[in-house]
C-alpha cells in the first residue's frame, strides 16, 4: 500500500493540470494514469484556447472560461521556465466564419446574449469580407462575414501535456503510468484505490480526472458523472509557410507551420475511427474558407472523443456521500488548463473559490422530482 495525501485519477491534460496545481500548493500527490490504451482526448484535440460563444444561457461558464484565458499567459511562462517545454500559447484573437446569413444571425444573437449576461467586458466584432481580408488575405469568396473576439487563442497541446507532466514530476508528484484504476474503497476514513497492475494507493482525498472513465469511477464514491463520448475528427496538413496569423474555429496554423483542420461533432459512441465522407466534408469546408488549401497535402487524420456532459459544460463536484472525493471533468481541458492549475487546487485543498465553482455541480442535471424524492 502506497500512502499519499491526494490521489488524482487520470493523467491527461485535466489530471496533469490538477496534479501539477495541487503539488504547486504543496500537497503530496499521486497521479494514476491508465496509459496509452486510454482514449486520450489530450492528444486528439484541436488546441484552441477558446472563449467566444461559450456560456450561452449559463453565464458562470462564460466567466470561468474568460478567467482561464486571462490566466493562460502566466501558466505558459511558468511551465516554460520550470520545464523548458514551451506550450506555444498565442492569443491574437480568433475568428469564426460564416457562409450564410442564418448562421451569422444566430451567432449575433448568441454573442449579444452572452454579453448581456455578464458584468464584465466581452468584446466581439462582426467583420465584412473586406475587413476580414485585411487580417487574413487568404479568405475565400464564399465567406460572407466573420465574428472576431480578441479573447481567443491557441496552444500546442502536444507540448502542454508533457510540460504539465514534467512540471508535476519536478514538484514531486508520484506519477504512475499504466495503472488503470479498478476500484475505489473507503477504509478507516481514507480512500483506497486499487489498480489493474495490482497496486493499492491510500489517500485522504481522491480526485477523478479520468475523462469518460469518470462515469464508472464516480459510482465508487457516490458521484453522478453523466458524461458521454462525442466524436470529433481532424486532419493535419503539411507544414506550410505562414499564411494564417489567427486561430479560427475550423482551421489553424501552428507555430511550426502545420495546418490543422477540424472539426466535427458526432455521437457515435466509443468509436474513435475516421470516416472518409466526414473527412471530405471537413476538407471542403476548409477549402470554402481558404481556397488555397485545395493544393495542400494531408499528412494525417484522426478522430478523438470529447468528454461531454448533458449541457456541454464542466462538472466540478465534491461527493456528498463521501466528502474528500471530487470530480473534475470537461471537454475543454486546454482552454481551462489555467483554472485547473491555479483555482481548482485551492478549492480541493481549502474550499477556496467555492462560489465560482458551485454552479458546475452535477446537481444541475437532477430533474426536480428526483431532487425532492
Amino acid at each position, binding site marked *: 500500500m502506497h500512502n499519499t495525501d491526494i490521489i488524482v485519477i487520470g493523467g491527461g491534460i485535466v489530471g496533469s493540470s490538477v496534479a501539477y496545481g495541487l503539488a504547486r500548493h504543496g500537497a503530496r500527490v499521486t497521479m494514476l494514469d491508465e496509459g496509452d490504451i486510454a482514449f486520450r482526448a489530450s492528444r486528439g484535440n484541436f488546441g484552441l484556447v477558446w472563449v467566444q460563444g461559450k456560456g450561452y444561457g449559463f453565464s458562470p461558464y462564460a466567466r470561468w472560461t474568460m478567467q482561464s484565458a486571462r490566466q493562460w499567459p502566466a501558466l505558459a511562462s511558468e511551465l516554460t521556465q520550470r520545464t523548458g517545454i514551451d506550450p506555444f500559447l498565442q492569443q491574437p484573437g480568433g475568428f469564426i466564419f460564416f457562409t450564410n446569413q442564418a448562421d451569422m444571425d444566430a451567432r449575433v444573437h448568441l454573442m449579444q446574449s452572452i454579453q448581456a449576461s455578464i458584468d464584465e467586458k466581452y468584446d466581439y466584432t462582426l467583420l465584412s469580407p*473586406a475587413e476580414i481580408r485585411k487580417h487574413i488575405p487568404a479568405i475565400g469568396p464564399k465567406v460572407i462575414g466573420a465574428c472576431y473576439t480578441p479573447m481567443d487563442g491557441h496552444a500546442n497541446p502536444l507540448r502542454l501535456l508533457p510540460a504539465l507532466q514534467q512540471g508535476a514530476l519536478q514538484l514531486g508528484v508520484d506519477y504512475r503510468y499504466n495503472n488503470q484504476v479498478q476500484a475505489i474503497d473507503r477504509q478507516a476514513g481514507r480512500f483506497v484505490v486499487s489498480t489493474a497492475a495490482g497496486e493499492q494507493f491510500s489517500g485522504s482525498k481522491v480526485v477523478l480526472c479520468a475523462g469518460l472513465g469518470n462515469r464508472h469511477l464516480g459510482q465508487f464514491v457516490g458521484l453522478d458523472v453523466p458524461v458521454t463520448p462525442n466524436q470529433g475528427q481532424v486532419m493535419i496538413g503539411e507544414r506550410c*509557410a505562414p499564411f494564417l496569423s489567427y486561430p479560427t474555429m475550423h482551421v489553424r496554423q501552428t507555430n511550426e507551420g502545420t495546418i490543422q483542420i477540424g472539426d466535427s461533432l458526432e455521437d457515435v459512441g466509443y468509436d474513435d475511427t475516421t470516416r472518409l465522407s466526414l473527412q471530405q466534408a471537413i476538407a471542403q469546408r476548409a477549402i470554402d474558407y481558404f*481556397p488555397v488549401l485545395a493544393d495542400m497535402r494531408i499528412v494525417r487524420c484522426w478522430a478523438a472523443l470529447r468528454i461531454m456532459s448533458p449541457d456541454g459544460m464542466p462538472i466540478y463536484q465534491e461527493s456528498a456521500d463521501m466528502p474528500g472525493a471530487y470530480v473534475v471533468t470537461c471537454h475543454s481541458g486546454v482552454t481551462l488548463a489555467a483554472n485547473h492549475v491555479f483555482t481548482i487546487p485551492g478549492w480541493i485543498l481549502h474550499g477556496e473559490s467555492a462560489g465560482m465553482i458551485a454552479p458546475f455541480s452535477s446537481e444541475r442535471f437532477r430533474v426536480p422530482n428526483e431532487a425532492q424524492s
Partner: protein
Amino acid sequence: MNTILFRTLQADSNTAKTGTVSFEFEGRLLTAPGGISVAAALMQNQVLQFRDSPVSGQPRAPYCQMGICFECLVQINGVQNRQACMITIEEGMKIRMQHGQTAFTIVQTGDAK
C-alpha cells in the same frame, strides 16, 4: 565523399522487363531500374540528403521507408512535400530537394480594400 553507402543487393530479374529510367535530381541526370521507389532510386545514386527540416533546418533522409515518418519528402514535378518512399520512379521525373515549408501563392479574390 565517395563512400558507397547504398547498393542493390541483388539485381532484379525483372529489370529486363521494367528497364532503366532516367530522371533528374537537382538538375543532375540520373538513372535507376524501373519499378523501384523514388527514395530507393535516389539512394542508389548516393543521394544522402532529401530535405531539410522546416523546424530545425537539419538535413534529413529516408528513415522508415513505409510511408509513416515523412522524413523522405521531396519535390516531384513541381509538387512539394511528396513522400519519396511511396512513389514509383518514372521516366523524366524532375525531383528537387524539399527546402522548408510549402509556400502558398495567395490570389486575392473579391474587393480587397
